[in-house]
């Protein structure tokens, strides 16, 4: 089971998908492409709060991926 966590104004929205389900994986990949296309950065979260890794391509084996909106200076 994979989870895509998208940061938004409600805190976050979680999209779970079954890695064995081809359609669900395809939808997850589509979501990945849409969000990264909008400027979100996808990060595979590390275990126990450790540093994650930047995802440049969709990887269905990643358990938890976090989508962060584009950064801006304040």
């Amino acid at each position, binding site marked *: 089971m994979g989870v895509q966590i998208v940061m938004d104004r409600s*805190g*976050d929205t979680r999209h779970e998908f079954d890695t064995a389900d081809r359609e669900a994986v395809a939808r997850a990949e589509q979501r990945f492409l849409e969000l990264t296309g909008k400027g979100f*950065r996808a990060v595979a979260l590390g275990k126990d709060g450790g540093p994650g890794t930047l995802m440049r391509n969709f990887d269905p084996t990643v358990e938890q991926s976090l989508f962060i*909106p584009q*950064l*801006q*200076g*304040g």
Partner: protein
Amino acid sequence: MAEMEDILRALLRRALSERGGEARTLTGITIDSGWRRFEPRLCAEFSDGYRTSHSLTPSACFAFCERHGVWDIAALRGLLLQDMRRIHAQMLREHRAQRGAGRQTWIAMLIRRLRGRLRRRPGRQLPAIEAVFRRHFLDESGEAWERGLQLLEENLSPEQRRQYDASGYFDVTGGASGKRYRIRQGSSMNVEQLDKRGRRVCTLCFMPAGRLVTGDVMLAQKVALEVFERDALKVANKFY
């Protein structure tokens, strides 16, 4: 049961309300037997030696024992300690959120911040009114706030979590440079670059677009510095 919980909360409220209260961790709990006509007292002990007590009525004690089916003092102490730690963690979170949201009106907080600005020394913590502003003016719901905070806490390392619980900030190591950064409670002007001695070098201001809740902003800052530090520094404004 409710009465026992009230007693535990009263003890913790007292411990938290005093100076250095947030940094204390609960280390033990004892029951002092009553002397003559005085009731027994429940005493909580903390890591810094602080000790506080509250009278324990037999009915509250009996109700607690009956509910949990424990009738020996060691098991009772163990259960009380376990319950008290749970309540302590919850109260710490509430305390932090309350401090962030501020009990004072935003104008009083603004005046305090301006006063602080006048006597600010390098390395001094920036007073934060962002939380108040965001909740009052950006219409952030309490639920969103909680979700953001929960997501942040789920993704802190044990050391960062301990530091955040104790001090309201946590340190992060830059993934590319190995530099140390401190992320304080807040959504802007809340990241500091530290030198080797832990002193502030500069304040960085960057956040994700879209008016996210504070927990999300802090998590995005942590992940950005750990995973794509250079890109984060490119957009960040620096204040020396």
